């Protein structure tokens, strides 16, 4: 490029004075620190005694740092792959839509904001309570659409009452029922607000030709009611599934009505009554996004939210330079859209995809803010990454700058291949 056609052979002091500020800053704050970090990584926490490669051994043996290393690996594999794939899909899909600019703006916008702001945004999205957190609000909505939620999660048999809790969570009336004798199935512990719509409980009919009974909330405010008796103010528990079981086999089942009563045909005579466990399972509360198990994928998702737009814009630029004629020729030859995409578009885009992927990898390698902000302190150790560990190791109480420097040097080593590729490309351009 420019080399070889320089217009002036500058006097040394002129060139020097143009370069000096930049070289001073780079030398003192970038180049010298590299040397210092390499040297510091070979010394212990105090910086006085030489420990060889012990600090690097620490990276691979210390449990906490190993977690960080493992998470970094997950980050480096998953985040760039997902972001690049989404970017490619978005770029291809928007190619022929007229209002694509709006879509691109929306997806690219998160690039402009800080990781701190993104972190706060996703702290809110991932709030555990489905009434507040968007992610769990969506998760529970989807879940409850496909799985019926149970009616009385808090209801329990009265201790010492006729019902016992079985291993599977169902409640069993141990005495067998007989037709014509009303069965009473008292439950307790249902919070008052859940009973606001409940009707008063009604005593079972006791018709001789059938098994009948009542399931109700055996509790009168103020404690005036008698146990195992349907007192006037006591309320019915409706919609509870009742099964009649003989020798472990269900012979009949039904549900309680609004007044808490149910009737079963005469076959149920002599059976045991069981209130199935799905009446009482606690409601689905969504996923514990920031708990120890999924905190890393959850944070990676927020990263993808920020960076998929970057991938999309670069890939779209690459897509625009794919020659139309090549695509048209392939279509004329009878290739379908998918064939064109897989056999022509993607191979032609390969260099762009590579650049995007490598750029994201370098970026992800140093991920810090998002993890530091989103992971609550209870699961910070599970979400740990190298850059965060470096910060924790190097500053604050109990710091070990030897280990911190070793992590820094390790990160530097990981980007050296990219550095070499950059330099090779530059040399090639200069030789032209």
């Amino acid at each position, binding site marked *: 490029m420019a080399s070889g*056609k320089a217009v002036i052979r500058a006097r040394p002091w002129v060139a020097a004075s143009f370069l000096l500020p930049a070289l001073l800053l780079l030398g003192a704050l970038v180049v010298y620190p*590299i040397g210092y970090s390499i040297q510091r990584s070979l010394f212990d926490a105090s910086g006085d005694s030489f420990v060889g490669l012990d600090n690097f051994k620490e990276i691979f043996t210390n449990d906490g740092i190993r977690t960080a290393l493992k998470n970094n690996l997950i980050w480096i594999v998953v985040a760039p792959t997902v972001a690049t794939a989404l970017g490619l899909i978005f770029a291809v899909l928007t190619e022929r839509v007229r209002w694509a600019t709006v879509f691109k703006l929306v997806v690219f916008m998160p690039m402009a904001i800080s990781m701190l702001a993104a972190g*706060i*945004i996703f702290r809110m*999205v991932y709030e555990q309570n489905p009434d507040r957190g968007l992610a769990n609000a969506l998760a529970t909505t989807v879940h409850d659409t496909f799985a019926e939620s149970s009616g009385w999660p808090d209801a329990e048999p009265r201790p010492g009452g006729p019902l016992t809790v079985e291993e599977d969570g169902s409640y069993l009336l141990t005495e067998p029922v007989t037709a014509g004798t009303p069965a009473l199935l008292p439950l307790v512990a249902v919070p008052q607000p859940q009973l606001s719509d409940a009707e008063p409980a009604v005593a079972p009919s006791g018709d001789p030709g059938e098994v009948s009974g009542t399931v109700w909330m055996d509790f009168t405010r103020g404690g005036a009611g008698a146990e195992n008796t349907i007192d006037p103010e006591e309320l019915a528990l409706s919609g509870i599934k009742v099964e009649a079981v003989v020798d472990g086999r269900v012979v009949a089942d039904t549900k309680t009505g609004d007044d808490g009563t149910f009737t079963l045909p005469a076959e149920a005579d002599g059976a045991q009554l069981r209130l199935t466990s799905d009446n009482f399972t606690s409601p689905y509360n969504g996923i514990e996004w920031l708990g120890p198990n999924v905190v890393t994928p959850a944070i990676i998702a927020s990263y993808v939210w920020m960076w998929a737009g970057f991938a999309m814009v670069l890939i779209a630029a690459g897509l625009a330079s794919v020659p139309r004629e090549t695509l048209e020729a392939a279509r004329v030859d009878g290739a*379908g859209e998918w064939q064109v995409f897989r056999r022509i578009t993607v191979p032609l885009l390969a260099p762009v995809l590579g650049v995007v992927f490598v750029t994201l990898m370098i970026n992800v390698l140093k991920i810090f803010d998002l993890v530091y902000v989103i992971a609550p302190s209870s699961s910070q150790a599970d979400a740990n990454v190298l850059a965060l560990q470096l910060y924790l190791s190097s500053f604050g109480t109990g710091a070990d700058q030897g280990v911190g420097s070793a992590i820094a040097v390790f*990160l530097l080593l990981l980007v050296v291949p990219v550095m070499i590729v950059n330099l090779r490309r530059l040399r090639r351009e200069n030789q032209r």
Partner: protein
Amino acid sequence: MTAPTMTAHVPDPADAPASAPAGPQRRPWGERLASLASGSVVRVILVVVGVLWLLPTAGLLVSSFRDPRDIASTGWWEALTDPGQWSFSNYDSLLGNEKFTGSVWTTVAITLPATALVVVVGALAAYAFAWMDFPGRDWVFLVVVGLLVVPIQVALIPVARLFNTLGIFETTAGVVLFHSAFGLPFAIFLLRNFFAEIPRELLEAARLDGAGELRLFFRVVLPLGGPAIAALAIFQFMWVWNDMLVALIFADAGSPPMTVALQQEMRQFGSNFDVLAPGAFLTMLIPLAIFFAFQRQFVSGVMAGAVK
């Protein structure tokens, strides 16, 4: 049983009947997917994805206008149907909080000099690399390009020590210098490539008119470098404005920039979104304004500089 009846939309009618008698009838699943994609399905997908992408930010914005008690009890979407929940009180109390307003000024005091310094120092060096001949030029430039991908983490410990010695640890000046240094490799790389494209006749003509190097730089090179300098300035501005890590270590914890102030708030009080939501939104205001006003420069800056 034949494939054409199963596909809802055949993009090219010519090949459907012709291939009917012989040959494999089932088109690969990808093919069917692609033909579906050409239609209105794409539009639906894009709308759904677009809404999905907007929701998190919308949630922050809506929450920032809600009473702490509302935030604690219900989701932000409840406010969409209940105008009574909206108020400016969170912003009122945040903007009345001296610590927060102070942090806004600290952010400005860090960002503007760090941007200006990178542009000026970077442009000077880039001009020298592009148009001056001096011993070791290519070699030094190679080093600068090599520094492009150096992670800032490498410098945290050594520079903290160095700044301690110089007495600028935990000062705004230190943060500015750190950001400037790490912005320089990209600045020099970007501007040198741009300056090299300036027609040499322009420079020679100016020299014949007796312009000195400095005059040439300010009167010819800088104005011609406008687009590249704009992209660089916007990129660097956003980078510094949004930074948290460097400020966390090098800024004065007593009067930190906005990102660190909010982070401290979070550490101390947990999820008090009546402060965090408006605070986060205020930090986003300037970057978003720049993003919408200078989309093209921002995109070209990001495209050239995401290597950082």
